[in-house]
């Protein structure tokens, strides 16, 4: 892994880290969603800074180049994050459905009472 690659990986993940924390600070990102991103950033920093760890992991998963290990973990994290978002969307979808149903029922009930009084 060249020095350039390392510098790029480290600075990129540090920037990611700062952006995430700032987003949380400005209440644009909820804390419960930020942890996955922070973890992603932390792992990239760790792997880029600690070269032996990266080499060990590369051998462990049978990859040829250390950079592909980095990419692999990047892709894996993205997959996990999107799967996590899918579950979130499912539950949000359910909640929206329930709220819409409740609102519709309550509105009907309200109108009915208005009319009969």
């Amino acid at each position, binding site marked *: 892994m060249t020095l350039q690659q390392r510098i790029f990986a480290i600075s990129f993940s540090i920037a990611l880290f700062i952006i995430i924390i700032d987003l949380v600070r400005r209440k644009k990102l909820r804390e419960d969603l930020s942890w996955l991103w922070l973890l992603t950033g932390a792992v990239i920093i760790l792997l880029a800074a600690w070269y032996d760890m990266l080499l060990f992991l590369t051998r462990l998963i049978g990859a040829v180049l250390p950079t592909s290990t980095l990419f692999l973990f990047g892709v894996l994290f993205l997959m996990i994050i999107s799967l996590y978002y899918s579950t979130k969307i499912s539950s949000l979808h359910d909640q929206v*459905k329930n709220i*819409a*149903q*409740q609102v*519709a*029922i309550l509105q*009907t009930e309200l109108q009915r009472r208005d009319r*009969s009084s």
Partner: protein
Amino acid sequence: MHAEGIMNLHKKEEFDTVIILPAFNEEKNLPPLIENIRNKIPCADIVVVDDGSADRTARAAEKAGAMAIRLPFNLGYGAALQTGFKYSLMKRYRYVVQMDADGQHDPDSINLLLEEIKKEDADVVIGSRFLSPDSNYKAPFPRRVGITLFRRIVSFIIHQKITDPTSGFQALNRDAVRFYASPYYPVDYPDADTIIMLHRAGLRIKEVPVLMHPSPGRKSMHSGLKPVYYIFKMFLSMFVTLLRKDKFEKRIIKKEDIPYDAPTKDIRH
């Protein structure tokens, strides 16, 4: 007729039966259908769930003397239907009939379903288009294949012969309605998988022959890639339903899980 309709809205407590019609852009079809139902079954409330229609479905339903629940946006057939179930739980109806608003289900058959559910030996009475000897129902070929396939699977899994697992023409008692109002109800395409869920939840199912007409324009549900998704969804849904048996039965017994709960039997009498 009109004044009577308004009266019924106010003296809701008189009836213990409700007919739920989920409707999406049925402004034209609804008034005659509601009129027809009203004539055939005078002792029932009619609730139309307007699934965020672009036309004046809700208004048309109210004018025809039905109750209209208007969803703020389009939620889909199953969720609209479930809205009706939640409403009937809140209103403590004893019996609920679900039918389609597009004229596919014949109002003449509602009484058959109601008679059967009132015998109290089944929680769900499914109207089957294939049971009656003079059935003239002709579905398109792919749909018939699908129905036959799911009929086999469902009958095999629940050890009971079900001839029309995809029928959306059903009568339910409170136990079944409570289940349908629960989070387990598959709101995108409630269909063959629902029957397996009902069976797993310990509810008793029965079939009665009903009359169905080929629906004039059913483009929304079975066109394009929808059948492929439909079959996939059905298999997945049935599979996971079989996987979660235990949790499921406990959930349905635990009544506080479901909102609008009230004692099931003998609410009114």
